[in-house]
């Protein structure tokens, strides 16, 4: 694995979905950190040089919007991609993140959007 490849933090309470996403992203050459809920993801986000966050919306304890709010306070420039199984999230949530997509749109869409976000944000900027 290339040391300077982008580091992605994936947060999702669905273990199968999280596992498959990790395999997919690693196959694409990214480094991947995972967390099963919001509270456990925040220390990782703070300590690790995360380049981009792929965040699930519906999770126990703290939903994606709340997690994004915390992250914005910690490192405001790290792009966040919100991934949700729900359609039509409230604007106060979507306004906190850089991009918002629905689960099931397929791997190529996800990869393309990640790539675009990373292009906007030079690697290592955080």
């Amino acid at each position, binding site marked *: 694995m290339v040391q300077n490849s982008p580091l992605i933090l994936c947060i999702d*309470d*669905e273990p*199968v*979905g999280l596992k*498959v*996403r990790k*395999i*997919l992203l690693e*196959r694409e050459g990214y480094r991947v950190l995972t967390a099963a809920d919001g509270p456990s993801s925040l220390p990782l986000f703070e300590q690790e040089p995360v380049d981009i966050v792929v965040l699930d919306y*519906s*999770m*126990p*304890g703290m*939903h994606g919007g709340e997690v994004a709010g915390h992250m914005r306070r910690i490192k405001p420039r790290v792009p966040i991609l919100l*991934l949700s*199984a*729900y*359609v039509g999230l409230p604007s106060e949530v979507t306004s906190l993140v850089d991009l918002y997509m*629905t*689960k*099931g*749109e*397929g*791997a*190529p869409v*996800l990869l393309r959007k990640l790539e675009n976000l990373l292009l906007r944000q030079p690697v290592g900027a955080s």
Partner: protein
Amino acid sequence: MNLAQFHRILRQAFLLPVVALLIMAGTLYWQLRGANETVRLIQEADFRISQTIGVGKLIADQESGLRGYEVTGDDRFLSDFRQAEGHFQAQMDSLTAATRDDATQKTNIEDLRNGYQNWHDAFALPIIATVKAGGQTSDITLNLYGKSLMDQVRQDIGGIMTHYGTQRSERIQQWQTQVRNTTEALIAIALGMGILIGMFTRNRLRAVSSAYRTSLEVLGRRAEEIYQSEQQLRRTQDSLLANEKLAVSGRLAAAIAHEIHNPLDSVSNLLYLLRTGATEEESRQFIDMAESELARVTQISRAMLGLYRESRAPVPVDLKEILEEVLLLMEHRFHELNVTARTELPEQVVIDAFPSELRQVFTNLISNAAEAAGKGGEVRGEIRIDASHFQASADKPAGAIIHIVDNGTGIPEEVRPQLFQPFFTTKGEHGTGLGLWVSQGIVSKHGGSIEIASDTSPASHGTVVTVTLAERPPIATGTVSELP
């Protein structure tokens, strides 16, 4: 016309005849009293006449006693004279007393008294003295003088009698006039009162009858308004029920979308991985994962189909199956709320019911319980659901009982009476305030009831919702509108 006016008319219609009768009775009494007084005066005149006749008789007795004594010189004749003499004064005093107000008669009586006294003193007593002395009393001049005195007395008695007789005739005349006046007055008053009562009653009855007609018209209009507003209310209620059903459907649809999108996302990613090249080992692993995720989708889709399968009449449904389906669809929500759901559904619990309506009820109640348990504080939220069948007893037929228990903070006592009211919600903008109201409607349609017991004490807080359903509900179809 209002009720007070109507009562006033009733009072008038009752009082007027009473007042008329009282006036007539008063007039009659007054007239009779006058007539009675006249009759009393007539009786008085009769009495005085007979008294005067008595006086005349006394004088006649004295005169005949005197004559007997004059002729025989026997003292026994004088006893009548003396006796009549005593009575005469008493009778004359009585007559004088009775004629105090009648000057003419008083004069007549004084004349009689004087005439008598003349006869007594100037003739009778000298005659008696002469006879006693043994002298002669047959002198014509003397006797003619006595006769003239007695004639005067008789004339005076005649004058008194005539005066009393005239008085009596006048009083009889007066009595007759009074009786005629009374009769005429009574006829006049009766006629007048009759006409007055008749006109008044006619006028008042007209007012009452017109008010009655107006009332009928107003009542008719009110009935129409009530009917219209009831129709409006029914339409509003139907639309509220439909809204609540849509809200429940919306929540379920969101849950379903979430449940399906998650596995679909994994499957789509796995397919991408397979297509972009994987080892045999990886491929097998990816395919297993994809199959397992698709099985999850199938399971969700089956539960979803069950949700919208509806019948027009109650069908046998297994509450265990319905509760498990609802719980499956809500699994993610429990996860999200950090709530554990435990069930005690040991066997089939079959009753006749509309399955989609019961799903709506249980989705509502379980979702309430989970949200309450999710806010339980430090203690991990927990809900417990059990269902069991019960046999018919004396007070209720056979049925099923379902408990939905949560360990949330409990429902404050002041809120409890409002729980089943429409538009009452403790969830702010997230609630329609119709969930429990609609659920209660559905459950009572199924011949059952919902009871809520809650405890807010720190040691044992929580809520128990008990749903009772009849095994064979006497369902009035159409009381709760069904989803199209």
